[in-house]
């Protein structure tokens, strides 16, 4: 007859449905909040770690490693010193290197930085969890010609479509008179949002970049400025002599450290090699403290909700003394009555966790589209990460355990009340 006891427990719970429903709702909301914060936290970290996730090694001129990474990937801090094009060529020919992409920085377009590279950038660089770059629109031309590829945010902000002609400014300040005004370049590709600085970048080929600069001496345009649209970019004259950095993808990850050592010992010029994934993870420890505070807050809210559950169980216990006295009179052991309360707490915890999970899924589903477009965060498709599942299991466990004080009290009062249902 265990089913009949369950039916009674359900009846008992239903007879207290209003206060229980409110408590379950509070708990479910706290669970939903915790799960959402956790999910946001993971999304933020993934987005950070995955800013250039396809890149195994970042090579630049000798200097601060962090400075090189921050400048190249996040456009933060001072410009990194330049390295030679010939060093890039040497790297590209290395047996261990699967692919390599040059990066040249320094110019801007209406406040957005210009990244001079090759079309290999779009083939190899990944974001997030190994997500390749995708074009929202493309005229089919590679930027190795005169085309320009703009990040999703740039296209949206400046309202650029395919074929729009844009001008590159020298340096980052938007000084109109300093722009390469004679050389507007057509937009040939628009990237999909990535949630990384790529969305805020304008991509041109290193050769077009060099051609634009050919007419420049320092920061002053010379009389001999070229019209980039008419020059032959295949002309070796437009091979840049200096670039900022090289993104390298390895054939085998096991050779990474060997390559790093060789780069550091490179003869022709002093170079440095950075492992972006590792360095970004280390950096996250510093950057992520705000998010840890948020997580702590979410945990505290869950704790408060659990305290609410204990309060409810203890408060309604008084109302249930008659019920308990009846069970006692019929021969129920105090332990069974305590167990009943713990079971009830467990059921409350299970329902709260399930409803909370549902809230979190619906909530992040709704928020996902907003966050995806505004914050550029990819909330991911995973309903429950292993750590979240663990946290949820812990919640249910603690919730069930919160029935223990009520169970102990019930045990005690059931002995005291004996079998009289007074009141």
């Amino acid at each position, binding site marked *: *007859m265990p089913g*009949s*006891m369950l*039916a*009674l427990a359900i*009846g*008992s719970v*239903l*007879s207290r449905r209003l206060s229980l429903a409110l408590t379950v709702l509070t708990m479910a909301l706290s669970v939903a909040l915790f799960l959402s914060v956790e999910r946001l936290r993971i999304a933020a970290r993934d987005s950070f770690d995955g800013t250039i996730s396809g890149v195994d090694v970042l090579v630049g001129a000798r200097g601060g490693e962090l400075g090189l990474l921050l400048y190249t990937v996040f456009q933060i801090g001072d410009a990194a010193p330049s390295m030679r094009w010939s060093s890039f060529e040497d790297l590209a020919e290395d047996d261990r290197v699967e692919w390599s992409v040059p990066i040249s920085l320094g110019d801007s377009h209406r406040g957005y930085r210009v990244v001079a590279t090759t079309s290999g950038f779009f083939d190899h660089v990944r974001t997030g969890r190994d997500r390749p770059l995708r074009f929202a629109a493309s005229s089919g031309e590679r930027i190795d010609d005169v085309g320009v590829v703009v990040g999703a945010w740039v296209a949206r902000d400046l309202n650029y479509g395919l074929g729009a002609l844009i001008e590159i400014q020298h340096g980052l300040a938007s000084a109109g008179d300093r722009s390469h005004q004679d050389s507007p370049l057509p937009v040939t590709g628009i990237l999909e949002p990535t949630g990384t600085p790529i969305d805020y970048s304008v991509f041109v080929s290193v050769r077009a970049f060099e051609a634009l600069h050919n007419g420049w001496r320092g920061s002053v345009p010379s009389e001999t400025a070229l019209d980039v649209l008419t020059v032959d970019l295949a002309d070796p004259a437009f091979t840049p002599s200096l670039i900022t950095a090289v993104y390298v993808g390895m054939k085998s990850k096991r050779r990474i450290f060997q390559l790093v050592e060789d780069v550091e010992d490179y003869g022709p010029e002093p170079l440095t090699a950075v492992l972006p994934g590792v360095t970004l993870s280390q950096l996250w420890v510093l950057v992520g403290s705000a998010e840890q505070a948020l997580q702590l807050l979410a945990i505290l809210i869950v704790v408060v909700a659990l305290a609410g559950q204990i309060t409810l169980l203890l408060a309604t216990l008084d109302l249930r003394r*008659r*019920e308990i*006295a*009846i*069970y*006692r*009179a*019929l*021969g*129920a*052991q*105090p332990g*069974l009555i305590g167990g009943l309360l713990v079971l009830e707490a467990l059921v409350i915890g299970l329902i709260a966790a399930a409803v909370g999970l549902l809230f979190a899924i619906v909530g992040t589903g709704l928020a996902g589209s907003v966050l995806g477009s505004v914050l550029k965060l990819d909330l991911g498709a995973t309903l429950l990460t292993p750590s979240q599942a663990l946290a949820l299991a812990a919640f249910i466990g603690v919730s069930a355990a919160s029935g223990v004080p009520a169970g102990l009290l019930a045990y005690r009062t059931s*002995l005291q009340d*004996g*079998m*009289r*249902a*007074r*009141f």
Partner: protein
Amino acid sequence: MVIEAEDLQFVRRGGGFSLTLPSFSMAAGEAMAVLGSSGSGKSTLLDLIGGVLRPTAGRLSLFGQDATGLSSTALDRLRGDRMGVIFQEHNVLPFATVRQNVALGVRFSAARRARLTGPVDAEIERLLTLMGLEPAAVLHRHASDLSVGQRQRVAAARALLGAPDLIIADEPTSALDEGNQARFMALLNAARQETGAALLFVTHDPRLVEGFDQVLRLDEPAQSHGEDD
């Protein structure tokens, strides 16, 4: 013997109340009334018999076993297996149906279940009928929908389920009007005679003790000096 009590004494912890009982015994199927005013210790006596409280002194034997030597678990089991209990009021779970409430009588005791002679539902219906209730009309109603008199009869049916050897009833009629009191007493007596259970019936009303085989009076001043509750 159902009960053999020798010089039972109970002192409530922390003092304040003590109860000294004359020796008494109850044979199988016998009906005994305990008469006493409020606060005289009637419910305390039932707690001692039910195994919820332990006597401070004296000897208590239940169904031929020495109850003073039993563990509280064993006492709970003994109560569940061999006794039916009827309270003064609040006997039923208001959120459960009449059927569920009566079925609880054998819920916590395998021995009680084993003594059922037929299907539990047939026995529930038989006992409800014995207690003057129409099974078809009340079986699936929530106990909260019943009158106080009906609830007490449901409680009696539950106490009788699974053929217990002893029914202990703590002023089960005190919340009923006179007509219902008499009717309840008549039904309970008939039902227990039919099932062969002994009855230990507690009341403060001298009019109700007629027809019992024995009457135990708790009001002699020497035996109690508790304050009223």
